[in-house]
């Protein structure tokens, strides 16, 4: 089996799905699922292979090169995995929308182009796939139409174009200087370049990758885009598409430029990686505090995506094998639980008629138990509670930061976790806990095809939390491929001289403790089940249906921090756009579009020239 087949199936499947949709909608749905499944199986089969293969479709005399290695495989499997689940989830979720052929086509096309970005071995095709990804994403963000969605899409595409232009500049410069754009050849040649040139290249590409990763201060597109996109696509956006930026950073920082040069990029104590670490820390804190003030279920998750990106870059930019493992593992973990949480938010939307407002939900645990289980597992992973996957990766990152002698960064990372608890609990409480409003009395659980992705991802969160060794093996292989030392990975965690982690022990302890306490629970006197209105209100009368404390859940904190938490970056961008808009409308006063005016300009100009000539005779 060859790599080009994988790419052909990915793109071909997308187009074929579109045309099959013209024949029958069932055929289209079935084919889309099969296509996504085929991609998962095929990608899985490439595990551990190291391929580099030029294909001669010459463009500017540069052949298209496909390659597969551990890093590519790692990102590819997350793309196709989430892609498959998202397609399965869409079957029911999207069923009553219009333009379904277009929806499935774009989703598959985005997946294919993302796959292209991680599988290509030269920068021209990287750029082409990257642009395909950006543009098709724009189409899908604004899929539902409406002012908000169009604005979100516009915000995304403008920022994305800025990033692409920076990247294009870098690519052209590389081509001019080295005459090649093949990644392996570049990696060899760039070692001889001057440090200032390498810094320039790194900054150019980093702009593109920071924007797509939505790190502070380029985070502003993400909350709008994620909240306005349809939920299955929000999953893809948040879980894998945003992390293409991480792939880009891996590619440039560690595969092309390499650790040796990166370590030399230090100017008066400020290193390139150090700057990235601080960007990560600011991103974590800013996003965590902003998220807990949100009242929209998907916006909370969107801000958490911004914040979790900070953890990844903290681990990756710290550039030790432990930190690298933590960062890489966190990419995988984030992909799993944020995908899960967006599916949960989508399930709520699906059953309640599109409600995302956290103040008007409540008590749904009694009606949607499977979704709730998914939500609680997802939120636990997001927080990083022990026995969920997020715990292991965060543990690795913290340990890196503390032993690396950087307690301040560790402090920001820890504090971000507390912010996560606050907004994670708010998400759970306002949707699922508390009292069930009368209007949701007859809500049912979502259909099975929507439950399935939730169940699969929930199991993975727990599995990688209890037996992290399964995934850490792959993560470790990514690290060693990038030139870091190998870690001693065991099935239940990581063993090293400076401190071991054994999740299996923790699991056993919690399990035994739970069983013992549960037994005491059972043998003591049985309790009676009571209605939700049968509660203690210290003698006050209980008004029905108005008895759910959700609105401004963290009000005292909100009042304290919100004056200091203005998103001034976003305000700056908005002001900038308004300024440019005004400038353009001033230009329009001159370019009126009337031929008469233009003739007048010409005549006036000629008159001026004649005047000048008559007076001073310059010509």
């Amino acid at each position: 089996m060859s790599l080009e087949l994988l790419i052909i199936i990915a793109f071909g499947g997308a187009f074929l799905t579109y045309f099959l949709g013209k024949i029958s909608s069932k055929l289209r749905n079935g084919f889309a699922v099969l296509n996504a499944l085929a991609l998962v199986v095929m990608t899985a089969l490439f595990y551990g292979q190291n391929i580099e293969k030029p294909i001669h479709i010459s463009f500017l005399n540069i052949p298209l090169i496909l390659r597969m290695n551990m890093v590519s495989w790692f990102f590819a499997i997350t793309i196709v995995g989430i892609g498959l689940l998202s397609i399965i989830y869409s079957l029911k979720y999207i069923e009553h929308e219009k333009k379904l052929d277009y929806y499935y086509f774009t989703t598959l096309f985005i997946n294919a182009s993302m796959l292209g970005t991680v599988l290509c071995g030269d920068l021209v095709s990287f750029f082409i796939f990257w642009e395909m990804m950006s543009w098709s994403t724009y189409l899908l963000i604004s899929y539902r139409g409406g002012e908000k969605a169009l604005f979100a899409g516009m915000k995304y595409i403008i920022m994305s174009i800025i990033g692409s232009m920076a990247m294009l500049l870098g690519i052209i410069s590389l081509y001019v200087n080295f005459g090649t754009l093949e990644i392996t050849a570049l990696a060899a040649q760039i070692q001889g370049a001057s440090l200032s040139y390498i810094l320039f290249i790194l900054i150019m590409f980093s702009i593109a990758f920071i924007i797509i990763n939505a790190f502070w201060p380029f985070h502003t597109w993400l909350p709008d885009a994620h909240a306005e996109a349809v939920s299955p696509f929000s999953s893809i956006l948040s879980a894998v598409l945003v992390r293409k930026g991480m792939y880009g950073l891996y590619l440039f920082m560690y595969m092309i430029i390499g650790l040796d040069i990166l370590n030399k990029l230090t100017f008066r104590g400020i290193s390139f990686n150090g700057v990235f670490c601080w960007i990560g820390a600011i991103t974590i804190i800013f996003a965590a505090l902003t998220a807990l003030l949100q009242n929209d279920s998907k916006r909370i998750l969107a801000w958490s995506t911004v914040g979790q990106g900070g953890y990844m870059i903290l681990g990756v930019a710290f550039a030790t094998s432990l930190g690298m493992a933590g960062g890489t593992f966190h990419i995988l973990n984030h992909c799993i639980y944020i995908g899960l949480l967006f599916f949960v938010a989508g399930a709520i939307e699906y059953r309640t008629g599109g409600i995302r407002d956290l103040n008007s939900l409540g008590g749904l645990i009694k009606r949607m138990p499977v979704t709730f289980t998914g939500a609680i597992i997802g939120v636990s992973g997001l927080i990083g509670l022990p026995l969920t996957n997020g715990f292991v990766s965060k543990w690795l990152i913290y340990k890196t930061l503390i032993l690396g002698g950087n307690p301040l960064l560790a402090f920001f990372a820890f504090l971000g976790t507390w912010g996560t608890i606050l907004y994670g609990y708010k998400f759970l409480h306002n949707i699922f806990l508390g009292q069930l409003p009368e209007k949701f009395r007859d809500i049912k659980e979502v259909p099975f095809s929507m439950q399935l992705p939730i169940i699969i991802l929930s199991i993975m969160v727990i599995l990688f939390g209890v037996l992290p060794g399964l995934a850490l093996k792959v993560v470790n292989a990514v690290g060693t491929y990038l030139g870091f030392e190998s870690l001693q990975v065991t099935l239940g965690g990581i063993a090293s001289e400076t401190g071991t982690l054994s999740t299996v022990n923790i699991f056993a302890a919690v399990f035994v403790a739970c069983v013992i306490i549960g037994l005491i629970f059972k043998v003591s006197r049985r309790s009676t089940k009571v209605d939700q209105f049968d509660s203690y209100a210290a003698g006050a009368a209980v008004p029905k249906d108005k008895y759910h404390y959700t609105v401004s859940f963290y009000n005292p904190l909100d009042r304290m921090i919100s004056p200091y938490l203005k998103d001034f970056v976003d305000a700056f961008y908005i002001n900038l756009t308004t300024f440019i808009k005004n400038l353009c409308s001033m230009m329009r006063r001159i370019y009126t579009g009337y031929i008469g005016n233009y003739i007048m300009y010409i005549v006036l100009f000629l008159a001026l020239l004649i005047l000048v000539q008559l007076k001073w005779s310059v010509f």
Partner: protein
Amino acid sequence: MNIIEIILSPLIALFTGIFFLGLARKIMARIHWRYGPPIYQPIIDIIRLFSQKAMSHGFIFEMGLILSLAGSILVILFLPIGTMCPLSTGGGLLVILYVMLLGPLGIALSGGEAANPNTSIGISRKFILALCYEVPLLLILLTVMTHYNTISIIKIVERQSINGWSFGSLPLLLSGISYVLILPAILGIRPFEVVGAAQEISSGPQAEYGGKYLAFNTIEHGLNEFIGIALFVNLFLGGGDLFGVFSRITNTVFGNIVGIIVFLLKMIIVFVMGLFINAVFPRFRIEQAIKYLWIWPTLLAFIGLIIVIIVN
């Protein structure tokens, strides 16, 4: 040996925690010039509660409580009590920090399903308060970890028995003071009694518990007090060490017992001092608590961290 420790240390924590609750009532009563209930009153209460009728609000209502108790017990297994630490090689202080989340989170989930707004208000306050004291607490823990250059709490305790208590060493002094300042908030006693404010929100998160649920909640409360103080004693007061007086009998069974007793005595002293603060202060409003916690303890802890970074 290890199995005995695994069984013994939660039991010690359980009895100490419940003893603390009784002691608190007695001492508070004496400060108020009352006679007060007997010191074993909470034990009687818990036994009585188990036989009383209870009302449940659903599955998570029960599971949350079980989870929070299991979480607290897990923390205790990671905490050295004197020389005894059952899960000594499990990930150290970082894991403790994280497992400590399970307790409040379990109670929050359980209380959430109770569908009582008083409960929800209490939980929201608990989380806000936790976020606020966590800022100085994290700084303090990071300072200690940086100073001793380890993430293992056992090594931190060992170093103190060689070099003297952290509280007495100059680089860590500010952090120690900062920990003392936030200890009432960690224990949830006045002036930080905002979470379980009985007069305002009818005891907050425990409003809906009755019967065995209240019994478990009381146990959980006792364990929480134990954890908060034990962490302080371990990090700053040298664990089970008493100025090296008993250094000759360490590693014997008798030495271990002495270590545990010294440790518990230290805990009692810290707790009683906390009670004195509890007795004389009125309750803060939550905004006042935020302001207090984010200004003085944070400032001290931050300066402490900077000092340690410079010294190292």
